[in-house]
């Protein structure tokens, strides 16, 4: 993913606000999939994400995540 990351960006896992109050949706790229998906944000942070609600997913796809769960897929050229 190519983007700059201003400090405290809402678009990375470094987002420091309340997930719920900001209605945060963080785009994460799928790195690998076992039970959950290992995903990475624009600046290299990684976390496990539950992907049942957007399955099937493949490595390389970008998911919109909220509270550890993928709720949508991001269009490839978005």
């Amino acid at each position, binding site marked *: *993913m*190519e*983007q*700059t*990351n*201003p400090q405290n*960006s*809402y*678009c990375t896992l470094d987002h420091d*606000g*309340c*997930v*719920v*109050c*900001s*209605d*945060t*949706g963080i*785009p994460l*790229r799928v790195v690998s999939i076992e039970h959950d998906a290992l995903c990475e944000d*624009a600046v290299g942070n990684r976390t496990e994400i*539950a992907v*049942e*609600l*957007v*399955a099937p997913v493949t490595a390389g796809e*970008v998911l*919109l995540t*909220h*509270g*550890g*769960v993928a*709720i*949508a897929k*991001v*269009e490839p*050229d*978005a």
Partner: protein
Amino acid sequence: MKYVDEFRNAEIARAVSAEIAAITDPQRHYKLMEVCGGHTHTIYRHGIKDLLPDQIELVHGPGCPVCVLPMGRVDDGIAVAERPEVIFTCFGDMMRVPGSKGNLLEVKAEGADIRMVYSPLDALRIARENPDREVVFYAIGFETTAPSTALTLQRAKTESLENFSVFCNHVTIVPPVRALLDSPDLRLDAFIGPGHVSTVIGCRPYEFMPEDYGKPCVVAGFEPLDLLQSILMLMRQLDEGRCEVENQYSRIVPWEGNLAALKSMAEVFELRPYFEWRGMGFIAQSALKLSDAYADFDAELRYSVPGVRVADPKACQCGEVLKGVLKPWECKVFGTACTPEHPLGTLMVSSEGACAAYYNFGRKSFEKVEVGTKK
């Protein structure tokens, strides 16, 4: 992946701003409401109001799920958290929301085991790691967050986890918006629809706005250009006499929503007949509780709680601000008795509450107004 830079381009912002100004009737006052804490934050943080003609007023509605929680429900959560066998888990801003006798952070300081989590799945992991303790997840949020709680409970059921339960305060977006439209206090012209709630529920639920109330709605993303474009789309509708639901955030939001998420929620939750909203009273079918199939995981059934309705502090005007009747700075105690460091009400606690957002980002433009005049 393009996601930030293109949606913060100043040149494009100025161009969109000029288009908005070109179709703004100088003799008319427009009231556009947004109901999403993330939108409130973007508006203040990026100075969106400064890019709009004075005729356009942005009104902030009850879109922050922490802000609409009545004090009595906070007291109920604290009652559960104080139990010695309980590990109480919740999202960040819940820790500082005032109940009638204090907040969760203060209760934690007194020795209760209260832990902040970023996902209900984290609470589930804590339950697996602590089989001798009872883990309770205090669930809040609109339809964006409810699927994560639903999925967590489905996993808990599959694993037959007996030491995990959820105290459910999930709320839904349509009933309070309908209540606002029915309110004689407000005369709104249009709605900026919540972006990520719509990712789950889709755009169809907002069709009642044009059909029943004659108000257009545009579902908006969260970057500055998303909001400016959404405002332009609304102004075009008002200018052209159209009234419909449009989707500005189509790069993320499918018109039909996320059917898997809706199915998960339908299995785990059911609608409460009514629920109290801070500042708005009781609203029918506006919140979720666990369904009978998940009763074993319902913390309200597992533990006894006070269940007392608590009135807000007399000085608190969160209700009027939540409904958009007052601007944050018009509250009697804004910035004086009520600040982010010492909040009286929820709108100053949540970082995306209207008052906190304005306190942190909006006061510069306010300082331009002469003393004794109101903007």
